[in-house]
């Protein structure tokens, strides 16, 4: 897993880290029983406050995405499928797109139409995700 965050983005960094873990699950670079990097390691790598990483891990634990093995670290929990995580990520993407559309005075129907047309013109490279 390679965690990428953008501090300039309005979203709090701990939420970005949570989404990065979910993204790794959905694309398959993390799977159940895989260890997450230690709080110290990830904080040092991202140059963020370790409390921020710990907060992300705590929230993921509360949601059942990861579990803590005492003295050993944080591991991905076995939940059978990643559909739930894909749904949560998709909702986040949708909410951000809707906000952006509203900012530009674009309604839901116009946005949906534009997404379909854009997906159509981008061809096969992006469509394989859902099929």
């Amino acid at each position: 897993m390679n965690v990428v965050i953008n501090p300039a983005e309005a979203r709090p960094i701990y939420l970005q880290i949570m989404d990065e873990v979910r993204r790794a699950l959905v694309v398959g670079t993390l799977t159940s029983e895989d260890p997450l990097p230690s709080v110290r390691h990830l904080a040092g790598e991202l140059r963020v406050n370790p409390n921020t990483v710990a907060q992300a891990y705590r929230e993921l634990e509360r949601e059942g995405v990861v579990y803590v093995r005492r003295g050993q670290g944080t591991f991905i929990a076995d939940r059978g499928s990643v559909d739930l995580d894909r749904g949560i990520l998709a909702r986040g993407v949708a909410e951000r797109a809707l906000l952006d559309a509203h900012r530009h005075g674009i309604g839901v129907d116009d946005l949906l139409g534009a997404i379909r047309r854009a997906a159509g013109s981008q061809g096969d490279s992006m469509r394989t995700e859902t099929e």
Partner: protein
Amino acid sequence: MDSPLDGTTFAVTTRALAKRFGRQTALDALDLQVPKGAVYVLAGANGAGKSTLLRVLLNLVRPDAGGVEVLGLDPCRSGAQVRARIGYVPEGPESGCGWMPVGRFLAHHAVYFPTWDPDYAARLSRALEIRPERRLSHLSKGQARRVQLVTALAHRPPLLLLDEPTDGLDPVARDEVLGLLSEHLADTGCTVVVSTHLVHEVERIADHLGVLRAGRLVAQTSRDRLAAMLRTYRAEGPDGWVGPPDLSGVLQRRGHGREIQWTVWGDEREVVERIVRSGGTVRDVARLPLDEAVLTLLRSKDLP
């Protein structure tokens, strides 16, 4: 602007702290509250009083009035004990030791701190590419900064006071220092007060903010509370619309035709409701990056 959370213990507090240099007011009625374990960014322009405040906490400057408590001690009475428990990166270079080679300077520094960890000092020196044979007086500003960072961190003090720690560092060294600081925080859980006029450089590790203007603390808050309370709102309305008459906590207002943007300290739902009630359509509610938040707080005349 902010009251402390119940049950918070503070590593550093000042009460009605004041300091004058001749006719110049350096610090004025200053109530600083740094929670234990916080990374507290002290922001402000050059000359706002940041360095003086840090020096008061170390009892290197005597206050004229007010109370100071650092790690449960009064620095005016127990200056040496307080300084022994603080890692300090001063604003300027160390004076009087210029002839010393860096390695000797570090060894000289180590004897003052019982908790000095020579292995850690060596590890930090390697990471920061410090050359022990160089004389202090021959170091560039950035190289001297790296040595000061080693002396501040290597005894793992419960409190770090960093006065413009990235000043003079090139981008690569700055990035390295931030990584070392993150790891240091994870290992020690220490409290940090870091003064800077370049807030974006420490934005990733900051969790508390104090804004100093002309010796006064004009804002003091946690990042969480700042993110929840300080937002920009962009809305448009009918011809001649001037927005709600009853909007409080406005720090900045900008109008372009029928579109108005406010930066407001307040509850988002209440602000949006008032804008909508006055006939506006809210297009955009956004948080401010830390450096923009500081700019807004520094510029605004009336603070909530």
